[in-house]
């Protein structure tokens, strides 16, 4: 049985950890690395940092934040937002990130997926997809942190992305993001049925129990959580226990 990864997702604007609803109406939560350290100590399996205004300005400001996190956080870190080239990816990886997540730049120039995957390995190249439902069982790819529509079908895009070399998919439901209504299970199921690489479900985790269906019915390999952790509605430890009780495989973790 595979172990489901519990991932803390930190959306960043400038120097602040923020949280919105449907990726909009951003509210400042606090210092990214104070939260990151807390989630690491709670036993988060990974961290995802997303610069949510980067693609707008074409720059990622997370280098310093990640570099400082690397001093005392020893779990994998994925960084996304505004990464447009192999050079951008190189900079972020040198700052202590293990993987880069790419959405907007990959939609504009899909071959970037292959370039990054060839240079650093597919395990380094996370295809980030922001999906919005446009009909029953049909989702459209959005870019620029859920602001711009592309007319591209999510399922077609994820298949293409994986063929181009993406080693993992970060799948964010814009409809559910920040709503606490639970994951979009049909979206996760539709995507994980199409690809052989791990799928991280993101958007909508309202309570620890939400993890059960997205794994059992959706086929998610990992879940990304933000709101539920940022507002202290639950902890990674509690969520791990809920997952264990439900019979999901999770990392054996003993707090130090």
């Amino acid at each position: 049985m595979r172990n489901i990864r519990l991932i803390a997702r930190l959306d960043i604007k400038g120097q602040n950890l923020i949280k919105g609803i449907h990726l909009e109406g951003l509210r400042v939560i606090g210092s990214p690395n104070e939260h990151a350290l807390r989630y690491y100590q709670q036993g988060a399996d990974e961290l995802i940092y997303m610069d949510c205004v980067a693609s707008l300005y074409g720059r990622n400001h997370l280098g310093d934040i990640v570099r400082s996190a690397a001093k005392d956080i020893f779990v994998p870190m994925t960084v996304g937002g505004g990464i447009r080239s192999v050079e951008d990816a190189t900079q972020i990886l040198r700052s202590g990130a293990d993987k880069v997540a790419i959405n907007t730049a990959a939609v504009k120039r899909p071959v970037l997926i292959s370039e990054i995957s060839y240079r650093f390995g597919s395990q380094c190249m996370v295809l980030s997809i922001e999906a919005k439902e446009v009909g029953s069982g049909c989702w459209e790819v959005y870019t620029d942190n859920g602001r711009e529509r592309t007319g591209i079908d999510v399922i077609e895009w994820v298949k293409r992305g994986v063929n181009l070399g993406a080693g993992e998919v970060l799948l964010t439901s814009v409809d559910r993001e920040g709503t606490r209504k639970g994951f979009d299970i049909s979206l996760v199921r539709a995507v994980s049925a199409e690809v052989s690489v791990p799928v991280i479900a993101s958007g909508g985790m309202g309570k620890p129990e939400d993890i059960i269906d997205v794994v059992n019915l959706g086929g998610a390999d990992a879940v990304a959580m933000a709101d539920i952790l940022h507002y202290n509605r639950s902890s990674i430890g509690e969520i791990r226990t809920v997952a264990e009780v439900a019979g999901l495989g999770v990392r054996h973790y003993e707090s130090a």
Partner: protein
Amino acid sequence: MRAPEVTVIDYGVGNLLSVERGFEHCGAKVIVTADPEKILAGSKVVLPGVGAFSNAMDALEKLKLVSVIHEIAKRQTPLLGICLGMQLLMDESEEFGLTVGLGLIPGRVISVPDRMLSGDVQKIPNIGWNSLQHSGVSERWTGTLLQDNSSGDAAYFVHSFMAVPTDSAHIIAHCVYGGHRVPAVIGKDRITGCQFHPEKSGDVGLKMLRRFCID
């Protein structure tokens, strides 16, 4: 007591900062370098690595580091290969055709099986946390870098290929992925290879790095 010194071989790609920070966290002074002289002068050497096997071997050749690593092994200087760095220790790899490796531990690098033992499709790359199990007859890891760890400790793996030593006595720990045994830590003389990333495996990995520093 003087801080232990760890020399990390820098041959191009990947996140070396985390390896550096991991050892620093364990109290070591870390030198990151591609300079053969400095590497040969190192009292403990780390061969990290992320990416493709053949690219890494090319890079090591270009930097004239293959013979340096052989010399290190000959001198019995403690050497730790991490992830791809572990795979490079083997004779050869099947990744993108056959490529010759460093040949320090007999064996071959092969793909992680894309089917589970049950026949179901297996996700590749193997990304995630997996528990370490004893591989030898002994139920203890005394005298290895896992000395301070316990069976069941989970570490972070990310790989599509795995190093399989010819002699099973060289396998110190393994994990089980889709029903298959995957070598997790291998060792011969003063050489250790680990498939997972100790610098990304929380306290479980830091224990191993700390042991490498003091051994």
